[in-house]
């Protein structure tokens, strides 16, 4: 009985080792993918927040105060990315809206958009 257990240990250890290697490889690939896509692909979290903010901007039944509350609820670390995504996805979003969402000055908006791979529409 004891010897049977010992003979099983070696294949299990091999499988676990292979699994560890696979997980490490997957993690490295995921990191590389994130690095490649980061400037142009918003994360799921950013996309969800942008959708929420854009819905508020487009909703004519909301008051300015209600819109502002939605804009201010965006988590601080995501504000720049959410602002750029809102501009990309919603033609009603002006430089002023981007500045309000991102918490930057209006004159900083073109640079912010460029940094996130979004082309500002100049008149």
């Amino acid at each position, binding site marked *: 009985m004891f010897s049977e257990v010992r003979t099983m240990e070696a294949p299990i250890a091999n499988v676990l080792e292979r699994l560890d290697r696979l997980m490490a490889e997957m993690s490295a690939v995921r990191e590389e993918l994130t690095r490649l896509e980061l400037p142009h692909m918003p994360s799921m979290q950013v996309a969800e927040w942008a959708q929420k903010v854009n819905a508020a901007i487009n909703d004519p039944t909301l008051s300015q105060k209600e819109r502002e509350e939605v804009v201010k609820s965006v988590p601080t670390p995501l504000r720049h990315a959410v602002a750029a995504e809102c501009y990309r996805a919603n033609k009603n979003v002006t430089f002023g809206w981007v500045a309000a969402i991102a918490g930057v000055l209006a004159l900083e908006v*073109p640079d912010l958009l460029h940094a996130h791979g979004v082309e500002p529409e100049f008149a």
Partner: protein
Amino acid sequence: MKFPICCTLTGWNQSLPEQGWLVTTLLDTNILSVFAKLGRLELLFQVLGAPLVISPNVQRELQSGLALGYENLRPALALLETGQLQAISIEAAEQGLLARVPFPPDKGEADSLAWCIAHAGTFVTNDERAARRASALGVHVVRQRDILRALWVKGLLSIEQVRALIVEMETRVGIILPDQDGIFADPSD
């Protein structure tokens, strides 16, 4: 710094106010900051004439920019001190409109447009989306490309100088203007 004032705006671009119709022209933050960055604020005065004004929100944005180290905004603020650029105030009538315009109320585009709606003013911007929304609200809009076109049509700069200015805007400020052929189209067309 004194800028020449030129109010004759006939025969070169239908987007600009007609001669003899005294309008107040409000500049947004970005258009001022672009011409300030290039050190060419005088071109705005030469093309648009007087009076040129800014809203309280635009004034605040310029002051905040300077406080954050955007030194190139200093000449624009200096024009306020000399009175060549004036700041309007927002009264009760405009406050009511401010709540209705579809822009963030603390931004320059919002109080500028509220004022333009109340007083038939002209709004000057380089934000295409703000320009479109302002036009939809019935506000007379002058875009950055209208200013560039006016510069050569009025003979203030040569076509080559305007082309060089556009290149400078691209390289120094990152502004890529669409429809550049339209800027240089024959005025008689």
